[in-house]
């Protein structure tokens, strides 16, 4: 009788899953320092895209392969964009690495807003000159500026704005 009770108890327990693969054991990208990995959501994004090795040309593929494009109404897009852009600026304003800038979860959520956010990105590019070039490329798949102008924000901005005007986006 006792054996039956013990057996029933053992079988009723959920199976213990041993961690055997790397997926379950997050890779620690920051082996030193006291502030390593504070933000769990950010860490998940970092693990996903690989901090320091984000290839901007793959940004679109990486963002859209993990979650579909988010569909919002125009006012919702604007509100969401403003919120995310503010957070993104606060978190990455002092950063130079475009890999880190684009791997930020807020930036990736902005990209996920899709075509609806393009006019807002162009407007913000015009007004605040923030670094939206990778996001614009990730959404549209094009770079309207001459490759020799890469890094020259004035010319890149002009090229994007000119393109936006031709497309009737601004």
């Amino acid at each position, binding site marked *: 009788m006792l054996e039956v009770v013990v057996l029933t108890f053992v079988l009723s327990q959920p199976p213990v899953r041993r961690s055997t693969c790397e997926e379950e054991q997050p890779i620690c990208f920051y082996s030193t320092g006291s502030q390593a990995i504070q933000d769990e959501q950010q860490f998940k994004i970092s693990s996903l895209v690989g901090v320091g090795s984000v290839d901007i040309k793959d940004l679109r593929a990486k963002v859209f392969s993990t979650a579909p494009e988010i569909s919002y109404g125009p006012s919702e897009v604007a509100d969401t964009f403003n919120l995310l852009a503010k957070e993104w600026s606060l978190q990455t*304003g002092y950063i*130079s690495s475009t*890999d880190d800038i684009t791997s930020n979860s807020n930036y990736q959520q902005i990209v996920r807003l899709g075509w609806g956010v393009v006019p807002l990105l162009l407007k913000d590019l015009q007004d605040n000159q923030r670094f939206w070039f990778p996001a614009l*490329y990730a959404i549209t798949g094009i770079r309207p500026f001459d490759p020799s102008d890469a890094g020259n*924000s004035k010319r890149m901005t002009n090229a994007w704005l000119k393109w936006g005007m031709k497309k009737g986006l601004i």
Partner: protein
Amino acid sequence: MRCFDLESVFPKLFAAGYEKTSEKTGHPPKPGAYNCIAWAANDMKHWWWPDKDSYWPFKERQTTIPCFIKAFRLLGYRVCDNSRSEFAFEKVALYAINKIPKHMARQLKNGSWTSKCGGEEDITHFTLDAVESFGPYAYGAPELYMRRLIFISWIVKLFQLLIGKTKELFGENTT
């Protein structure tokens, strides 16, 4: 003037000592215009990073230390083994995390260092560890030092100025 935003990001900044110099250098924050790598390279017209949306002096674009060494070799810098201030030399320091470049600082004549924090303020910090930081969005620690003769820096700066002016003229006509 204290920058509490930066102090919250770089825990050693206040203790190490720093000064906000954006006003003095005449380069107020311009998000997206140029970054710390451009600042170290003395180029305030481009955002330097080895990707297709940024300026990089040659075609090979990889976020690796050798790629950064190659870029700064073009500016006359050579790898050296320390950050000490040396007579007739100008130095830069490359910060990295797990061998992935994150930030660069340039040494000033008095031995202090100047850093442009992303597209934000430029600061003078008295020690290199002032902007050491670790975490999801951090600079890491100095991994590599490069130096060039002041004399070479004058020639390079002159070239940069001429190239910039030429591009400006051509750019105005072509765009």
